[in-house]
């Protein structure tokens, strides 16, 4: 039985539309099933082709997405992946990212519903990231590259459509962020002087992994002049120390994404990732006096009383609670720029490794292809 036949027996699973791209887009927008950009029509035939790269039970939810707690079955996720423009071989990575978002420590409910402008940043490592065509080089956080654009977009569409993260009702973001259209990167493992993120976290180098963080838009670190690690990190610390971020208040895990040239300069001074974290933990601080009087009184003195009730105004406020909380990757191409990515704060990064339904590590996206 085809997927179309199956879905025709489920009331509400299909909707009829004129066979016209503009009519489809109008319908999607009128139903609230869009991010505001045109979509590929999720016909049953296209959804079925997407599901050719899924080795799971097609009706068993991968997660329930808050705030509606809609059941995210592979069929529904695949419809969103089609809309986003995914190729079928992208689908295992979309599912993997959603699995990671289901990790309780990520706090999907809080990040979906908050007034804060956060969105899932997807960081892929490993061979299947390259196989999918994810760009880790020039313009790694920018536009142009299909895999980055559509995998991140598919996840966002699923969060909106299945989870009902509708602006003003389910998603209460005050301003939001353009990163809510898509924020999907891969680590530039070839040009990193350090172990890639998934290896650092204890996963096999040959595995493929995604790490999700509840990210703000990236903040640029432009440093064309510094010639050593201390210089680069001084500029990074200057970019990290901002009063408007959530990270000074919560034990969150902000991200530092070195451009390869900055990373090389830092590593050439024999600094490991752990050294970088320790240095920034000590130097990326603001004196308490840099915050407003009301913020000092109402937030630091009252809500964070254990640490700041009697703290002097020159007490250092750190941008992350422990050195190991700073997530570090290398991504991008040539040039003297890095990116600092603050987070929602009350969230932890979550990582998942790409496995087949039988629990074995996947070596290739084609491992998921149904016969």
């Amino acid at each position: 039985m085809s997927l179309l036949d199956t879905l025709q027996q489920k009331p509400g699973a299909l909707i009829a539309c004129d066979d016209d791209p503009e009519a489809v887009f109008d319908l999607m927008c009128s139903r609230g099933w869009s991010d505001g950009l045109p979509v590929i029509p999720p016909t049953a035939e296209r959804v079925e082709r997407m599901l050719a790269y899924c080795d799971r039970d097609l009706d068993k939810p991968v997660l329930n997405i808050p705030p509606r707690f809609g059941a995210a079955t592979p069929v529904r996720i695949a419809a969103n992946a089609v809309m986003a423009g995914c190729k079928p071989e992208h689908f295992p990575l979309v599912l993997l990212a959603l699995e990671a978002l289901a990790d309780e420590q990520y706090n999907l409910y809080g990040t979906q519903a908050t007034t804060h402008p956060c969105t899932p940043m997807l960081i892929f490592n490993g061979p299947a990231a390259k196989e999918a065509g994810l760009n880790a080089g020039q313009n790694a956080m920018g536009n142009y590259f299909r895999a980055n654009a559509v995998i991140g977009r598919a996840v966002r569409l699923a969060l909106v459509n299945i989870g009902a993260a509708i602006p003003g009702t389910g998603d209460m973001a005050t301003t939001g962020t353009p990163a809510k259209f898509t924020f999907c990167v891969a680590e530039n493992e070839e040009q990193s002087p350090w172990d890639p993120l998934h290896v650092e976290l204890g996963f096999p180098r040959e595995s493929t992994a995604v790490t999700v963080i509840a990210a703000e838009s990236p903040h640029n670190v432009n440093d064309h002049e510094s010639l050593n690690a201390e210089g680069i990190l001084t500029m990074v610390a200057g970019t990290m120390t901002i009063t408007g971020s959530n990270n000074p208040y919560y034990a969150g895990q902000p991200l530092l994404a070195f451009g390869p040239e900055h990373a090389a300069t830092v590593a050439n001074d024999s600094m490991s990732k752990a050294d970088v974290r320790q240095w920034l933990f000590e130097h990326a601080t603001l004196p308490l006096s840099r915050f407003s009087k009301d913020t000092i009184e109402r937030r630091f003195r009252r809500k964070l009383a254990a640490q700041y009730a009697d703290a002097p105004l020159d007490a250092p406020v750190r941008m992350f609670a422990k050195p190991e909380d700073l997530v570090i990757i290398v991504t991008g191409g040539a040039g003297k720029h890095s990116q600092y990515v603050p987070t929602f704060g009350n969230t932890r990064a979550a990582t998942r490794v790409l496995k087949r339904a039988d629990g074995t590590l996947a070596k290739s996206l084609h491992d998921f292809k149904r016969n």
Partner: protein
Amino acid sequence: MGKIFLVVPDAPVEKAEQLNANRTLGESGIRLGILDNTKGNADHLLNMIIEGVKKEFKVDSVVMTRKAASSRPAPDAILDQLAREADLVVSAMAD
């Protein structure tokens, strides 16, 4: 123009009826539960609501609880206490 059938990309609200419960209030009055989500003015708003409820209904008891952080769910211990000690719960955020 021909028609095509699209797979609906959203998900229905499931088992929503389970969120509703019939309340039978006893003669002794309401056992009112309060869950403060720690937002800046939530406590002020909730105190106003308590006073408002007391003017309209007979209130037997008020149990006050407070989450550790606004952006995390209330822990089971708080939810269990509210289930035990309250007939209805008011939660609020107010920045």
